């Protein structure tokens, strides 16, 4: 039986008024336990993000024979990042399809298979390579349900690592959240923790629409506590709902994927200086959970958006505008956005560090927004 689960204990701990205000926010972290346990009432075991993805895919492929995995090195190599470890002997080569290096071709094949009734999971070695297939992601997957007026739906998942890794250079480091997030017809997800990864991937595979699932290479090896409910094979998270990772009342910080970790650490530092930050893990870039973000900003009156991608036309710009549209009167300070530098990713380690948001950047921005006098960081 499918069931979407809640942290019942956490929900009971946090006041019911917030739940009524938002009218449907499903997952909240337990504020009291946030600092240490990242909000899980019953942390039973730990799991890396890679294991979480592996287990989610495994369960979905076992449950539905129409689900199959296709991509470069997913079979015999066990996945370029070992996400599909152990799948080939278990499911066989027809369901774990090693493809030639033909992104446009095999992505189109995946979309065609989805048109005709299967549920493919197309893995890109990184989303940078997906640019060779972006015609199929946008034109033949995202737009088809609309163009065919509901005749043909496309239950496909495009997944792979997104964003910067370590020292891989400009062509392997771009974050595509903003690009895919601007396309009607796509659902775009970006998990952070293992539970997020498990729940969202399962939801994505079960979803009848095209989903772009943005993972992060550096997060694959990160270990997170996972509750017993999350280990249940029918666990899945709703698409379109953000999660409050840490409650606060002075400033709201929104982030997704790896930046959530940095934001939580920044929140720790800020807490020592008397600023309580509310950290929101977006989880879903499209549809963006505007109600949750707005409710948080109405509470704190200040906002800092954090993302790894390029600044112009980024996710932060969209969040900023959505706040202005819905909650302008509640703002006590201009919104700050922390983004990657407006340059292709450099290779040198120190330059790369400068080109990506660091914890200090988030702390400084939060302080500026709270009008504690801190000079602006040098731009670019």
């Amino acid at each position: 039986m499918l069931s979407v689960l809640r942290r019942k204990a956490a929900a009971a701990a946090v006041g019911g008024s917030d739940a009524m205000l938002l009218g449907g926010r499903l997952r909240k972290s337990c504020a009291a336990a946030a600092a240490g346990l990242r909000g899980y009432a019953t942390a039973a075991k730990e799991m890396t993000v890679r294991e979480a993805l592996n287990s989610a895919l495994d369960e979905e492929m076992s449950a539905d024979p129409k689900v199959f995995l296709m991509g470069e090195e997913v079979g015999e190599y066990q996945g370029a990042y070992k996400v599909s470890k152990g799948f080939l002997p278990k499911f066989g080569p027809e369901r774990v399809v090693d493809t030639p290096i033909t992104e446009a071709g095999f992505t189109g094949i995946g979309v065609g298979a989805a048109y005709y009734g299967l549920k493919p999971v197309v893995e890109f070695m990184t989303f940078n390579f997906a640019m060779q297939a972006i015609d199929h992601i946008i034109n033949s997957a995202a737009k088809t349900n609309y163009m065919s007026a509901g005749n043909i739906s496309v239950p496909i998942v495009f997944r792979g690592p997104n964003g910067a890794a370590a020292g891989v250079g400009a062509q392997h480091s771009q974050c595509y959240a903003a690009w895919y997030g601007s396309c009607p017809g796509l659902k775009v997800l970006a998990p952070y923790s293992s539970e997020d990864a498990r729940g969202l991937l399962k939801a994505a595979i079960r979803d009848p629409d095209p989903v772009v699932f943005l993972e992060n290479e550096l997060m694959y090896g990160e270990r997170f506590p996972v509750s017993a409910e999350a280990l249940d094979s029918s666990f899945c998270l709703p698409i379109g709902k953000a999660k409050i990772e840490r409650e606060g009342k002075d400033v709201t910080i929104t982030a997704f994927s790896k930046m959530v970790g940095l934001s939580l650490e920044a929140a720790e530092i800020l807490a020592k200086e008397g600023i309580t930050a509310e950290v929101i893990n977006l989880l879903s870039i499209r549809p963006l959970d505007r109600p949750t973000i707005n409710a948080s900003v109405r509470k704190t009156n200040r906002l800092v958006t954090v993302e790894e991608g390029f600044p112009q036309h980024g996710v932060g710009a969209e969040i900023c505008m959505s706040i202005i549209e819905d909650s302008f009167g509640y703002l006590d300070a201009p919104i700050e956005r922390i983004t990657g530098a407006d340059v292709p990713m450099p290779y040198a380690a120190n330059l790369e560090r400068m080109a990506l948001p660091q914890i200090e950047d988030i702390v400084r921005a939060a302080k500026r927004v709270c009008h504690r006098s801190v000079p602006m960081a040098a731009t670019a």
Partner: protein
Amino acid sequence: MSAAFPSVRAVCRPGSFAGEKRGPPPAAASGKLASGFLGSAWKLRFGALPARRRGSSSVVVAVSDVVKEKKPKRSSSSSSDLLITKEEGLELYEDMVLGRTFEDMCAQMYYRGKMFGFVHLYNGQEAVSTGFIKLLKQEDCVVSHYRDHVHALSKGVSARAVMSELFGKTTGCCRGQGGSMHMFSKEHNLLGGFAFIGEGIPIATGAAFTSKYRREVLKEADCDHVTVAFFGDGTCNNGQFYECLNMAALWKLPIVFVVENNLWAIGMSHLRATSDPQIWKKGPAFGMPGVHVDGMDVLKVREVAKEAIGRARRGEGPTLVECETYRFRGHSLADPDELRDPAEKAHYAARDPIVALKKYILESNLASEAELKAIDKKIDEIIEDAVEFADASPIPPRSQLLENVFADPKGFGIGPDGRYRCEDPKFTEGTAHV
């Protein structure tokens, strides 16, 4: 395997550079092509081939020219000599006349302002669509590109639905949201309708992949559905075409790649754009048969199609079929069509496939003139009715603008009871057990 394509005059093995054994070297050949390529030139050249006849035992066969062993001009009354029965003949005739009349009506409606945007008409190429699609079942898939009205009609989408779609009315096959270039029909397994050339080829390969998957993984033993992908000569220079030839042959997918080589990609002549203009040769390079056929003759196309579709259905893998055809009108209704030589146009106009089939039917005494005229009249009425229906249909209401973006708009998925989970009031309380 050697019986494949029995009416083939010449056979060559993949991998061997057939050009060398064939008479004029490629440079001279393209010189000859550049000056003419009037279709008949092929036969003349290959008539002088060395005697490598059929009966080759190679598993993969590349075929140069499919020559019918019986000339169509036969007044024999013995129907066993004929390639088609009366019913089949009339079916083919009706389908081609439907395509032609529909497209002519589209041109009229466009110039009257009822249709707009990009409209690409199929006049002259009907033999390819009819020849292939009339051999398919409803469950077989057809994937096309922007010149897709007639593919939709041949596959079974009603003229009313296609015309309404072109008028942008809500009764169209895609509720007016797709348009001329994006015909989709789940019921008839028409998987598009794509504006990007080459985009449909991987989609078709994916549908073929699904057929194979259903047979082998989902164990639906009777799933022998075939996919036919239609695309043009310009597409054959696109990377996705080669990627899919490779994967289709690699995985032996049940697909037929049909090239509608009408020699022109808007104003770019095929010969100016392609290093080796013989597209059928690209099949054997990837390990599948490549066949060239006269696409203005529906009976020849049908013979080749029977074999290619049969191969795919039996699980023997893909085939590349190059149909030499011609579009009588410009690339689209906005194309002034100034670059094509009038002599070339006249040459192909003389080989109009509908006229040729009519002649065959009458000379073989399959049907009388009166019966064919009755079909013409019937089609005229169908088209008139389609136009009236489209005219009378309402335009999409404002509320339709935001519909159909997602199959599941709220994003929570569909529960086992078939309803959106977010509509379940218990869902947001977190106690919903679906």
